[in-house]
Structures are given as structure tokens and as C-alpha cells.
């Protein structure tokens, strides 16, 4: 009896492997994001957080409301530096617009889907909110809660989406495929066919990260570049350095490092330093420590981004909606720039901490740079 049930469970798990393998490789979405990367942005010059890439506008006249507004925000959490910088950006934007905002209520779900659903529920029950901003922990899990919220007030979703069209707008940069395309195309352009690239990733199974890898992998495959390994390091610098050392010790030549997030990029580079090897071509992200290292060591590098300035946009959108102004929607595509050799110098700010995300668009916000942890 037990043997049978173990077998059944094993089989169920085994079958699922084949069932789910294809989900992160969506050629239509890949193509769409590739086009968006080269689409010209509409909106105010030099303020990418207010711009949008094509798409429609939605009419919000029915949400118009007078007076100062209470904005409620259900946050998935601040469990990594990207979200820490982002939340600072959002608070900064709210401080900038303080004349029009009564209060910004923030509930932090600590990464728990179940808690975030309860949080949204209690925001609705509290009855204070004029508008609800949601940054979901997981796409599917938050869908019912967001649907319930849409019936009561205007909802804005950003970063991750939900499986419903009910929010007024869903704000996000181009996306994971775009990130993978920018970084992999750069690496492919710098290396001859047959070169080796090592992929360093955070965790498996997370939609916004898996799409980055899937896009990069298909570009590497097309360019004839070998992906000699794809390793998960959980954003842990020690693990990243160890993994890269292990690959170096295997004696295989590593021509490039591709990363799905740049927070451990400098640790990966240190492995080459310690082994006395020249630096590889590398794609990181817009963190200060990586940019400084890039400049100091003259790396051949690129910093694609998933810009944290997207955390400013929901506040702007919320106020526009409550003013009855139309906003880009139901999808608001923000530009997703990459930092290149040409623009590198302009993004470096020695005052900022190591994992400050340079595309924060926060330089003009009140409290900059101290609120963002500057010395």
C-alpha cells in the first residue's frame, strides 16, 4: 500500500517535469519585448518613470476625487536590496507630492502570499484608502485578492502582474526577456563563436528571473556560444565566488559571465582575481559596486537593468487617476535602459552604498542621497 502511494507520488512529480518545462520560453513575448526595447518612449524627456512605450491610454474620469488622498500600498516585502531602493523611491515620490497626499499607508507582507492577501483585505476593511497599489508576491496567488479590491477602489499593480485585467493599469518595465536580450546580445557581440559563458543565477522557478535566462540562452544558442553551466547562488556572495572558483578549477576557459541579477557580480569577478586570471566579459546590473569595479578595472561589460524608478510611477499614476486624468493602461510599459561603456561614468556616485541601484531616478527626490544610505 505504502509502496504504491510512494510510486504514485513519484510519478506525479516526474510527469510534472515534462508538463512545465516550456513555460518560460514564450516566443511571442520574447518578440514583443525585443521590439519594445527599441521603441521610442513617449512622455517627458529625461523622466523615464513618467514615460511609456506605446500602448493605449485608459480613461479614469469615474475615479475623480477631490481633496488630499490616502494612498495604500500592499508591498510583497523588502527582502532584497532592489526592493529596499525601490521602496525608498516610492516614499521619496510621495514626499515630493506631499501637498496632495494625506497619507501613504504601507503594509509589508514579508514575502508571504497568504499574509499579503490578508493585508489587502484589511486595507479594504479599514476603509481609509482612496487608491490601492499592489506589488504582488506571486502572480497567481494575488489574483483573487486584487479582483476583490477592484470592486471597491481603483487598483494599480506594478513589478509582477496578476492574472486579471481589472486593475486600472499594470506598470512594469519591458521585462525579463528584455533583460536577457540586452545582456546576451552584448556578450555575443564581444565573443567569437564557440566561446564559453557561465550563467550565474539567483533561484530557480521565479518568473521574472527565469525569463531573463530563457531569453539569454536562446540568444547564446543562436550565436554558437556554449553555456557551460547555469548555477544558482541565492544572492549569496560567498556561494557565487565559490561556484565560479569551482568552474575555474575545472580548467575550462570561461570567456564570459552572464548574470540574471548583478548583486553578486563583484564576487564573481573576485574569483578571477584570486586565481590570477584576466577578467571575463561580464553582464551585471546597475548596482554601484559593479559599476565602480567596471570603471576601475576597465572591464568589457554591460549593465542591463530592471529599473527601480518603476517604484515612483505608481504614486504618479495614483494621483493622476484620482484627478481623473487618463493614464497609460491597461499595461504601462516603462523604458528599460542598459548602462553601457559610454554612459557608465554618469551613473557612478561614490557617495552611494555598494548595492545602490543607479537607475533609481531618485536624484531629484527629497532626502537624496542620505535616505538612500549615502555616507
Amino acid at each position, binding site marked *: 500500500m505504502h509502496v504504491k502511494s510512494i510510486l504514485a507520488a513519484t510519478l506525479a512529480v516526474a510527469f510534472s517535469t515534462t508538463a512545465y518545462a516550456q513555460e518560460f520560453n514564450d516566443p511571442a513575448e520574447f518578440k514583443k519585448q525585443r521590439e519594445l526595447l527599441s521603441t521610442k518612449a513617449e512622455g517627458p524627456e529625461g523622466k523615464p518613470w513618467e514615460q511609456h512605450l506605446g500602448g493605449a491610454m485608459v480613461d479614469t474620469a469615474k475615479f475623480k476625487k477631490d481633496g488630499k488622498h490616502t494612498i495604500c500600498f500592499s508591498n510583497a516585502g523588502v527582502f532584497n536590496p532592489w526592493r*529596499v531602493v525601490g521602496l525608498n523611491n516610492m516614499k521619496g515620490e510621495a514626499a515630493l507630492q506631499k501637498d496632495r497626499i494625506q497619507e501613504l499607508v504601507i503594509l509589508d507582507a514579508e514575502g508571504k502570499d497568504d499574509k499579503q492577501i490578508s493585508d489587502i483585505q484589511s486595507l479594504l476593511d479599514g476603509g481609509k484608502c482612496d487608491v490601492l497599489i499592489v506589488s504582488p508576491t506571486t502572480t497567481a496567488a494575488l489574483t483573487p485578492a486584487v479582483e476583490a479590491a477592484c470592486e471597491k477602489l481603483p487598483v494599480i499593480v506594478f513589478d509582477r502582474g496578476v492574472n486579471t485585467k481589472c486593475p486600472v493599469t499594470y506598470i512594469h518595465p519591458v521585462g525579463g526577456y528584455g533583460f536577457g536580450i540586452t545582456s546576451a546580445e552584448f556578450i555575443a557581440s564581444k565573443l567569437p563563436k564557440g566561446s564559453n559563458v557561465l550563467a550565474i543565477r539567483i533561484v530557480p522557478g521565479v518568473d521574472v528571473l527565469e525569463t531573463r535566462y530563457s531569453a539569454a540562452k536562446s540568444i547564446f544558442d543562436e550565436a554558437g556560444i556554449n553555456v557551460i553551466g547555469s548555477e544558482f547562488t541565492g544572492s*549569496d556572495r*560567498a556561494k557565487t565566488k565559490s561556484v565560479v572558483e*569551482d568552474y575555474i*578549477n575545472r580548467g575550462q576557459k570561461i570567456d564570459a559571465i552572464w548574470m540574471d541579477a548583478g548583486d553578486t557580480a563583484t564576487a564573481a569577478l573576485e574569483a578571477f582575481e584570486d586565481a590570477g586570471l584576466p577578467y571575463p566579459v561580464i553582464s551585471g546590473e546597475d548596482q554601484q559596486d559593479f559599476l565602480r569595479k567596471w570603471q576601475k578595472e576597465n572591464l568589457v561589460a554591460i549593465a542591463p537593468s530592471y529599473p527601480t524608478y518603476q517604484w515612483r510611477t505608481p504614486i504618479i499614476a495614483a494621483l493622476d487617476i484620482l484627478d481623473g486624468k487618463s493614464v497609460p493602461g491597461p499595461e504601462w510599459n516603462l523604458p528599460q535602459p542598459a548602462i553601457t561603456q559610454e554612459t557608465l561614468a554618469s551613473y557612478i556616485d561614490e557617495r552611494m*552604498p555598494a548595492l*545602490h541601484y543607479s537607475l533609481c531616478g531618485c536624484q531629484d527626490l527629497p532626502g537624496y542621497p542620505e535616505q538612500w*544610505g549615502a555616507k
Partner: protein
Amino acid sequence: MTAIPDTVRPSRRVSIRGLNFALLIFVVLYAMIAVLQPNYLEAGLFMNFLRRAAPLVILACGQLYVILSGGFDLSMGAVVTLVVLAASMLIGGDPAMTWPVIVALYAMGLAVGLANGAIVAFLKVPSIIATLGTMLLVNGLALAWSGGAPRGDLPDNFRNLGRLVLRDVPLVGTLPVAVIILVGATLLAGWGLHRTAYGKRLLAVGDNPRAAELAGVPVKPTRISAFVVSALAAVTAGILIGGFSGVSVNAGRGLELQAIAACVIGGAQLLGGRGSVAGALFGSLSLFALFTLLNLLGLPQALRDSLQGVILIAAVGASVLRHRRST
């Protein structure tokens, strides 16, 4: 110390078996690594292996003290995170600050260890809950202090403790500073446990606190000191980890469970009374060799977790069987 209960004595004999077994596992695993990647037999790569394993070994030695006293220390990982973040903020990239700050870091460790010990000894909170509480508390403090992302910078003289490799050393060729610290810390831990009256008292407390008390052992101070040793070990490991790879908010995540697992593979008995530093040393080297092996095999991440679980059960299960046979 004549007042030690008789029950402790046979445990010494058993602890030597624990050593042999963990050593055996380590040799087998390292041999498998060497088969896959023969250059791991070179002195240089072995030294590099030790350099990376050093923090785990030191954590395991500290954890062993608490385990022998009959408890657990779940706050070690959080202390590592605190140390790395605090070092970077306090030093702020100024090499002159490195040594004073290291003293301050040990003071913080001392405070956490005393707090853990006092909560367990005086408030009678079971250590698994007490250190779970301090784990949340210390981790929260570290993140609140830094604002959730690393700040400041670590200068080279701090980084060197975990990163620098001395070249052209006689006999071994290369010698990482971390390995020197590893050897020193292990010897110190072994001396404290196996060569002093304090070590015997610790074993007695873990074996049977009631009997130890009747025999005149100061149970509470002994128990508190075990948590202090553990916290100081965590500070040392934190310095090495920060040195090896730099500042990160994830620096200590999950290390407490690895340290406990390493002790257990090394033959330590949970809830006290039996175990040795040599066992903890080879237990943690075995665990680290296993991680390296799984890396080299290039297995999917998921399978590595599963294999780790299987091997943990096998190692502990085997030691249970051996002890059953010997009693």
C-alpha cells in the same frame, strides 16, 4: 575534577569512533572529488578547499559546545549576518578602523552569547526557542541598522583575513590566512573541550544536568559559557566570510543548520553528552566536500538538496546503528 559523574567516561571512547567515521566519510567524498577533478589533490586546491570550508568548521566547533551542553544555537547565522553588515558600516573602508572594529564585533558576539545563555539558564526558555528568538532579533537589528542593504565598505586589510593567500610557503606552497585561523580556532576549541576541567564539566552538564549539579558543577555558568563560545565562533566565521567574499545581507542564511548537521555527522549526540572537536571538524569538512562534489557533478540544484537530505539521514542513521551495536 573528581566530582564528574561516571557516565561521562565512556563517552570519550565513543567520541573517538565518531571521529573515525566522519574522517572516513570525508576521505571517501574527497576521493570522489579527486576522481572527477584530479587537480583537487594538488596542495594549492586543497588549501583553497580548506579556505572556503573554514567558516563552516569554526561555526561547527562553536555549535558543538552548545550541543554538548544539551542545547542548540539557532542564532549563529544571524550573528554572521550582523558581523558582516556591522563591519562594513563601522569600518566604512578605513583600514585604520579594522582592528578596533574587530574588537567591537567580538563584544557584540559576547553580548549575544550572554543573552542567549542567560535566557536559557535563568528564564528557563528552551534553547531552540530562545535562540530562534535571538535569531529573529539579531537579524532584524542588523537589517534595520543597515536599512536592508549593505552600506559602507570593507578595506583590504579586513578582507585579507578571509581572502589573502600567502605564496611560497615551505611544505604547502600556498597558505590562505583563513586556514591559519581555522587551525588556530580548531586547536583552541579542542583544547578547551578535551584538555580542560571546563570541557569535562560541559560534557557532564549536557549528559545529566541534575547529576552534574549534585556533583558540584556550576550548571548555569557552564551553560552560559557554551553560548558565548558559540557566538564568538560565529563572529570569527563572520569575519572570514566577509573577508572571503564581501558584504551581503544573505551572508549567514542557513548556516546554523549546516553547523548542527556538521556536528551530528561528526558523531555529536544532540541533547548533549557526546561529541568531539575532531568529529565536528571532519563532519563539517565532509559536509563541505559534499557541497563541492555536488557542484562538480553539475547536478540540478533541486537534486542537491534532496541528496543532502539522504546523506544526512544515512550518516546519522549509521551512527545510531553503530551505537546500538556497541551498547
